[in-house]
């Protein structure tokens, strides 16, 4: 446990030291400030496009921070040689992977909380009860989304270079956000080999789309049913656990 706390602390200090998250925060403030200053035909109270854009921005920027931070952790430790004194201590390789995952989740969650807070200040100051529940759900889904992203990135970082890892994770994210519906339709409507291939892709690839509450939040729909929250939570835990298990196994066999 102490090892994990130390790894998390080290990554947190790196987050404070590096300027990435500050720059992204300033970018977000500028963009939201620009949008909130826009007027359309002197019509007052237009807010949904701001929520839409703001939520997308929060998710995207948090995703960028999570990927870029987690992707360079293990390769940097190996490249600089700091992984050897770490492993010389009574720290298993799996614990190292798990510690890096925990650190990635903590730093991306801190960044996400900051960005989400800005979004709430800009767009949800007059939120009603239903919207508050939806906001809480969005926050929870955001944290789970970043946990999933961290797990995927840490998994790839065991056997990929940082740049390849970042590129693959970004591609996977945009693919799942854009084409997950098509994969699902292919399962429902297709038959035989094609349906099996699409089915395998649908079940194996990480469903980043499960965490996207943009439409509900933007258009003030009802909160997500509880069973869905439970199902998505269970999915996240199982998927992350599986990825970390395989990452630990792969890292254990890796020649350093």
């Amino acid at each position, binding site marked *: 446990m102490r090892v994990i706390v130390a790894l998390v602390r080290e990554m947190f200090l790196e987050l404070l030291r590096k300027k990435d998250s500050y720059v992204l925060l300033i970018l977000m403030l500028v963009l939201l400030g620009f949008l909130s200053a826009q007027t359309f*035909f002197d019509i007052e109270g237009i807010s949904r496009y701001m929520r839409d854009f703001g939520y997308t921005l929060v998710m995207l920027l948090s995703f960028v921070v999570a990927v870029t931070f987690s992707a360079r952790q293990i390769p940097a430790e190996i490249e600089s040689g700091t992984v050897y004194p770490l492993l010389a201590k009574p720290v298993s390789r799996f614990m190292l992977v798990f510690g890096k995952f925990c650190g990635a989740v903590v730093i991306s969650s801190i960044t996400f909380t900051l960005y989400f807070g800005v979004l709430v200040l800009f767009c949800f100051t007059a939120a009603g009860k239903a919207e508050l529940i939806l906001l809480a759900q969005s926050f929870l889904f955001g944290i789970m989304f970043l946990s999933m992203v961290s797990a995927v990135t840490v998994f790839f970082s065991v056997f990929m270079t940082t740049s390849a890892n970042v590129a693959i994770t970004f591609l996977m994210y945009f693919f799942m956000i854009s084409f*997950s519906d098509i994969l699902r339709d292919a399962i429902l409507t297709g038959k035989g080999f094609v349906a099996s291939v699409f089915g395998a892709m649908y079940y194996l690839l990480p469903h980043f789309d499960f965490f996207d509450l943009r439409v509900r939040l933007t258009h003030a729909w009802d909160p997500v049913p509880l069973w869905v929250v439970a199902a998505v939570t269970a999915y996240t835990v199982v998927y992350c656990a599986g990825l970390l298990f395989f990452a630990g196994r792969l890292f254990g066999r890796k020649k350093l």
Partner: protein
Amino acid sequence: MKRIGVLVFIIWFELLIVFAPAIDTYDHAFLVGRGMADVPFYLRLLGEGKSILSAISVLQADRYFHRGIGHTDEHHQEYLDEDHDDLSVDDVGQPSRSKKMNVFLRIPYEIGATEHMHLEQDQVKEIIPWLYYAVKMDPHNVQAYVLTAYWVIDRLGKTQEGINFLREGLKNNPDSWEINAELGRVYFQDTKDYTAAVRVLSRARRLLAGEEHDKFQEREVLSFLAYSYKALGQDEKARSVFLNISKLFPNDSTMKEKSKKTL
């Protein structure tokens, strides 16, 4: 060494003073020649892609009108209409809560809302930014001008702002019969400025004659024109336009009666 540095700096600075305004002047003249001088820099960067983005922006406005939900998915409907009776269907044709759809497949439907609803009353203002940006991205998107004007004037009651917007549209698209016709309709219906209505509707009629169109569109333009003439007391002209409409629809006796009554 220091002197050389100062000398290089002076030459570099002189070159900047000579070249920068020249490039800027050329650039401005180039953009004015193409009607793009007023287009913001970030939109110019998009090039021709801005027309596509403009069309997407109009579609996004439609999604907003349906509270973030797209239109009925025909693909699902076809699937349901075939031999698959294992999926139940809600009012928009989306498979839902089926016994054969496992939890994993159901989650996306539960997360994204699927109920078919429209924005009501004051809420329709939420679609305006997308329509506004549609014309900002592509000032030649005539459909976006007409649509925006309809929502701003007819549904949100901002008549003068809508008229100004249509005028801006006319400035960018002087040969558009659609914008002329819409402006004529607004002058006739909202501001009761029949002289202005006759002016723009006559122009719309002339432009329409030079383009492919259906007779229902022509009837709309001619109807407003005829009633504008009538409101101005120019009954002979009104009668002539009513007769033109009746030629478009020979089986419809209403316009013939109108032309007779106008006499």
